């Protein structure tokens, strides 16, 4: 019964992935600088496999409520069903509280991905704004702003996070996103600043000023589009990074709080008996590894596809 349901679910997710892929292909043929980059991305075989996989994972996360065979937090039968290895009814086994691991994994995808996406969205927004302002203004403002970044970057992120959580204790998901996001933008702002420093000396910017454009307009229309590719690549690689961080924090018990499932949490629940309950760490571990790998592969593919030297063929 659950197997059938699961097969239907996989088919559904695959169909969604295929539909998105078709729209995607049409966008790539659209022309323009972004269309050119897209079609270049589409010719990258590894990148496309990774992208399909991510679309699949995202679909699973989005439709988790309908895909998961059981409620992820319900203890099905604490006597008969606790710590069961994979079976037809429970393909990924059950945990010590008799909860269905597959269901927890599916719902965990939702939490892990959402936390990572939102945190990275926050950090690239802050990082881009900060870096763009520093780079564009230049001079003393830039020097001060960059020394602040240097100071921030000299403290390992994981230590900062552990310190914060040690002080704060249990945090809500919103706070977790905020903390992960606000500790992750320093290197992005550096990248953006370097790019802006270069872009602002381009003749294009002088030409725009000669036509009477305001600084705001120049930043928005002439400089930020040039930074986009850098930011997109940094964001993609950043998501993988944050997934690992979140999993690590949740494993340590300071990230996503029980009973909410995240990939790190599930591994933590099985950590008392890793060898005996291998399914508790293998499946969420695979999910983490594959997803992070996919994000990294996509990041590299984007880096190639968005290379500004190739984006505007002369």
């Amino acid at each position: 019964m659950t197997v059938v349901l699961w097969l239907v679910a996989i088919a559904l997710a695959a169909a969604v992935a295929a539909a998105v892929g078709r729209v995607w292909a049409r966008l790539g043929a659209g022309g323009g600088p972004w269309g050119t980059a897209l079609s270049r991305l589409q010719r990258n075989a590894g990148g496309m496999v990774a992208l399909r996989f991510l679309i699949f994972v995202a679909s699973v996360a989005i439709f988790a409520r309908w895909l998961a065979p059981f409620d992820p937090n319900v203890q099905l039968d604490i006597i008969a069903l606790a710590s069961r290895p994979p079976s037809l009814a429970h393909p990924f086994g059950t945990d010590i509280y008799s909860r269905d691991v597959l269901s927890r994994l599916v719902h965990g995808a939702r939490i892990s991905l959402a936390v990572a996406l939102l945190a990275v969205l926050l950090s690239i927004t802050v990082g881009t704004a900060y870096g763009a302002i520093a780079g564009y203004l230049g001079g003393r403002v830039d020097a001060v702003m960059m020394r602040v970044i240097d100071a921030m970057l000299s403290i390992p992120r994981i230590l900062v996070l552990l310190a914060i959580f040690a002080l704060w204790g249990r945090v809500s998901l919103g706070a977790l996103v905020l903390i992960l996001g606000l500790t992750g933008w320093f290197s992005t702002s550096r990248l953006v600043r370097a790019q802006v420093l270069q872009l602002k000396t381009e003749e294009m910017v002088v030409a725009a000023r000669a036509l009477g454009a305001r600084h705001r307009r120049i930043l928005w229309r002439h400089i930020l589009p040039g930074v986009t590719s850098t930011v997109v690549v940094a964001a993609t690689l950043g998501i993988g990074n944050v997934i690992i961080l979140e999993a690590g924090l949740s494993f340590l018990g300071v990230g996503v709080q029980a009973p909410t499932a995240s990939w790190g949490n599930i591994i933590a629940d099985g950590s008392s008996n890793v060898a005996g309950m291998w399914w508790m760490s293998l499946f969420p571990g695979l999910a983490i590894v594959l997803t992070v790998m996919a994000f990294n592969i996509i990041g590299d593919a984007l880096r190639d596809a968005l290379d500004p030297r190739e984006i505007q063929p002369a």
Partner: protein
Amino acid sequence: MTTPGTGPRPLLTVRDLRTYFRTDAGVARAVDGVSFEVMPRETIGIVGESGCGKSVTSLSIMRLIRPPGTIEPGSVVEFEGRNVLELPEGEMRQIRGNRIAMIFQEPMTSLNPVFTVGEQIAEVARVHAHATRRDARDRAVEMLQLTGIPAPAQRAREYPHQLSGGMRQRVMIAMALVMNPTLLIADEPTTALDVTIQAQILELLQQLQERFAMSIILITHDLGVIAEMAQRVLVMYAGEIVEQASVSELFARPHHPYTEGLLAAMPTLGAARSRLAVIPGTVPAPTRWPAGCRFHDRCRYAWDRPEREHPPLYEVGAAHWSRCFLAEEPARRHPLTDLKAAGGGA
């Protein structure tokens, strides 16, 4: 020809313009006391080698000098009766792209690769005339048509990289003229183009000058372009104007040795010479202009006086000025044929 002090009021008066860059290597006096006037509907050419201050002069007029560059106090750029160097930045922005426009040497790098050319032309109308999106777009197509681009409505939807070099320069011209400026500064507008396209662009500029009744400051190192386009010429060297005259006067009776050298270095059709004349050496670094006459170390006539003293501008003919002591001591000039025969050798 226009003579300062008579006739109509000049559109632009530049007086004692000094633009200095305070760098770690010292103060670079890129533009060092330049004065000239541009009359309505007039084309003046500014000519000189790379690094002699032509572009910095034009950027200073537009007030587009960025730190560490500063326009020194005492400089005056009077445009339509106002000293633009004293205007607040907001008012200056109203002038840029509206009353004074500028086109650059390399239209590829001056255009934004991520927007269509139509969007970029329309942007000017949106900034200055607060035109609606639709009006601005129509205006863009109209401007493209004016610059002689075939199928302008279709071209407006293309990106810069889809156009040829000449086409891109037409787009730049279209952008510059959207607001019907009274002064167009063209900084090496044809240097990046091949000769046939160059001729087309120059002709287009002349047509549009007529149509829009504007003045043009044409910056180039190509005296051929000057001869074709300008009524008056300023020759710049090492941040200064070294000679100023009408085009016909300058070509017929060059006074300054630097101008002589530039003219001798022009390839002439049918001349029985195997080697082009060159001016030995290069423009010195702007942080270390030579004392005395700044050209003396490259000058074939130099004697001890220009090594010590800095020459003023002498009036050497009708509306013809030259910054050379030869105006006082003409006997020191060897025959020009020497220069040609020697191939400009030092």
